[in-house]
């Protein structure tokens, strides 16, 4: 049998796809990466993780200067911002990373083909780009087509007044009043951006709490802090219908049984994301998807066809860029005949509000429901020396351990730099470390990370600084 054109064809150049392609190439597989967007990098780089973090950083600096310079003895009159400049900077950051991804693929000798891919048969893709049609044959495929925002049926996105995260990141000007439907990660992050820039922001959430996947101690703490920052929360509120007016949107909302109306200049609908794979024509080759559209995969990330893999948001699981990347590496290694391993429990979760939230492992409830006899340790940043130096002492570290083995089963941080600190928890979980071992490790002084040591000591009933 003649060898096919490629060993592996990766569909999608987001954090799942481009990482998978690079790993395949490293392992000696002849690889092609197909991308239908104008630029590489997927949602993450272009309209997700990166642009939002760039805006969050710019607005955080503005907030710091505008609202906290005085207490540090800095006199800063007339602090103002130019939203357009922030957007231009954001674009530059995105551009630099997109170019970076292209460079990495080139360096690793991965062929890049632009166009929309569609399966003609289980070993052949048809690629369409601007009317031109071509074909690619490969022995293996990795589907990394990601996800897209879910829209409410009565609020179809127009990305001007009715926004998905994409539109919310690309607004031309700061709205006076912004409604946000959904108090998950995306909702609270984008709400923070515009609140800091002076918008009135109302967040409408169906459940009785925000960021429901977080440990309750964390989500309660975050809610208090965000409220104190001026964000208006309407919890246990369901949006029944909407009316698009000339100069804004009015939502009919039911809060605790009471019908009420909320209006704003724009509304961001951030109620979740759903998998994208419709253009692939998976039905044609019989690749199974579940009722929500996620591609079904087995314990080796293989779809119905043993040579077609699927990774990232298009597969059910935490919709995180780094999860997609891990799965991309694993799929590449499996194709190359290796025996990799992915520990989903050791994949961290971050919210980039200020203060940040980061967590890895089980929440307290999950640990209890899992049948573990649980021990908990909490250290508030109020007692942390570095936090005092910073001036922001909000937040806490919460560690959850298993009494029988002494092992860490969950770490949850609400506080500045949480995203950078969570690595300690990731490592401890992956390597089955105990609370004792974490507590015995030296943590530099003065740092925020000492709160991790202290929380573990607290769980072991021998805190030093509490």
């Amino acid at each position, binding site marked *: 049998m003649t060898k096919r054109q490629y060993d592996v064809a990766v569909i999608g150049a987001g954090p799942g796809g481009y990482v998978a392609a690079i790993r395949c190439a490293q392992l000696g597989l002849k690889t092609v990466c197909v991308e239908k967007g104008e630029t590489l990098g997927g949602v993450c780089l272009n309209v997700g993780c990166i642009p939002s973090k760039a805006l969050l950083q710019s607005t955080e600096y503005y907030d710091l200067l505008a609202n906290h310079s005085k207490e540090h003895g800095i006199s800063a009159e007339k602090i103002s911002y130019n939203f357009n400049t922030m957007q231009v900077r954001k674009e530059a950051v995105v551009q630099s990373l997109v170019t970076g991804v292209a460079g990495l693929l080139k360096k690793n000798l991965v062929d890049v083909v632009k166009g929309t891919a569609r399966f003609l048969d289980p070993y052949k893709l048809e690629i369409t780009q601007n009317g031109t049609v071509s074909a690619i044959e490969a022995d293996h495929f990795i589907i990394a087509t990601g996800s897209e925002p879910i829209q409410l049926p009565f609020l179809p996105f127009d990305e001007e007044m009715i926004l998905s995260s994409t539109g919310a990141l690309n607004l031309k000007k700061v709205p006076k009043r912004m409604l946000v439907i959904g108090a998950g990660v995306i909702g609270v992050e984008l709400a923070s951006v515009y609140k800091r820039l002076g918008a009135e922001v109302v967040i409408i959430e169906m459940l009785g709490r925000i960021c429901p996947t977080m440990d309750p101690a964390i989500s309660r703490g975050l809610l208090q802090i965000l409220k104190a920052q001026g964000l208006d929360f309407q919890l246990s509120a369901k949006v029944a219908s909407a009316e698009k007016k000339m100069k804004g949107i009015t939502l009919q909302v039911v809060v605790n049984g009471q019908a009420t109306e909320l209006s704003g200049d724009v509304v961001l609908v951030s109620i979740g994301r759903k998998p994208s794979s419709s253009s692939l024509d998976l039905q044609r080759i019989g690749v199974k998807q579940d009722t929500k559209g996620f591609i079904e995969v087995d314990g080796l990330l293989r779809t119905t066809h043993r040579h077609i893999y699927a990774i990232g948001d298009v597969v059910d699981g935490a919709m995180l860029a780094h999860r997609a990347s891990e799965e991309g590496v694993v799929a590449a290694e*499996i194709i190359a005949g290796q025996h990799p*391993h992915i*520990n989903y429990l050791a994949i961290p979760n971050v919210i980039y509000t200020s203060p940040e939230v980061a967590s890895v492992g089980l929440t307290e409830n999950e640990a209890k429901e899992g049948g573990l006899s649980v021990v908990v340790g909490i250290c508030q940043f109020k007692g942390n020396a570095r936090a005092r130096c910073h001036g922001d002492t909000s937040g806490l570290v919460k560690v959850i351990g298993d009494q*029988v083995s002494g092992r860490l089963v969950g770490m949850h941080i609400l506080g500045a730099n949480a995203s950078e600190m969570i690595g300690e928890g990731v490592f401890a979980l992956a390597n089955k470390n105990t609370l004792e071992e974490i507590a015995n490790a030296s943590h530099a002084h003065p740092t925020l990370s000492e709160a991790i040591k202290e929380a573990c000591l607290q769980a*072991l009933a021998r805190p030093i600084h509490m």
Partner: protein
Amino acid sequence: MKNEIKVPSMGESISEATVGNIIKPSGSLVAMDDEILELETDKVNQVLYAQQAGLVTLTVQPEDVVKIGQVIGFIEAGEGKGSGQKEKAAAKEIKAEPSPTPPSSTSLAAGAESIVPIKEAAPQASVRLTKEAWLEELKRPQAVPKKESSPVAQERPSSPPLKPPRIDVAPLKPARSETRSKMSKIRRLIAARLVEVQQATAMLTTFNEVDMSAVIGLRDKYKESFAKEHGVKLGFMSFFVKACTSALKAFPEINSYIDGEDLVHREYIDIGIAVGTPKGLIVPVVRSCNQQTFAQIEQSIEAYAKKAREGGLSVDDLQGAGFTITNGGVYGSLLSTPIINPPQCAILGMHKIMKRAVVVDDQIAIRQMMYLALSYDHRIVDGKQAVSFLVHIKNCLEDPARLLLEVS
């Protein structure tokens, strides 16, 4: 609806088996016809397939000995979805274990234990450690505690003294290292059999050489019409089988075996043909060779090769030969001493056909020559018979008309 997983019948003489590689451990979701686990016997390996889709629960571990008909688990009917994270059933240990590799073919040139090759692309265990699997692993009592950390207590624990700081870093694997892996059951059995036959029999080998010009000439002349007429290629093997059949008819004591104190002679001629497959050496048996034509012999061999590749060989295909032909020539062997396949008393080794300078009618000629080796059990066969047997084969091959005319 629960479907019991039972140990199937694996051949007349087989009453028990050993559980080998577990492909889908307890807690896995399987689709119908998915491979669940492998069962090993001293003759054959067999894969157990799922008879319905659902959740697998196994009550056995690798190395467990099970009886034919024993229930070793069950499948509970379900959707048979792919194992996503939402699985409530805890998936078992997830570290991907490399599937045991069947013994390679090279060292088992002759007299090898009959093995059915394990199906290509046997899936490994899941590599995705889900939350449920992680919890299950955490809760499993540790045989040897990983570290000396005291379990966390509610009151002030007497903490173990802080260990002195570890300065050493785990050394990188040195360049001259070894790796150790356990021998599979099949390999252990083969090893034992090979040693046993050499100790139990008085085995020696006699050699001869054969000028293959006549056979090669016939093949070249008739290969196309043969293929056209019979739908199968004319190989060397049919000539060899025919020659051996003729020789076994002339020397019936070689078509015999020792059973206790009896010498049992077979009236029928079943010849095992050693075939190399990617997964190892197998020896399917061509039955009643004395009644088979050239075409039928070639067709049997081709059918076996196909079955072997697709993993469809049964124990019955591999049992009951009275004589074996093995061909080391395909790998390039010029000469070798094949090991007898017990309880047979002889084995013929074919080798590489090579052009050599030989003396024909007092002249040097270039002929396509092949060395033949006949290993035999001297307890049953004496030297004169063995040598004459081999000469008979040689004559039939050098002058195939003898086969037609049934002249020795």
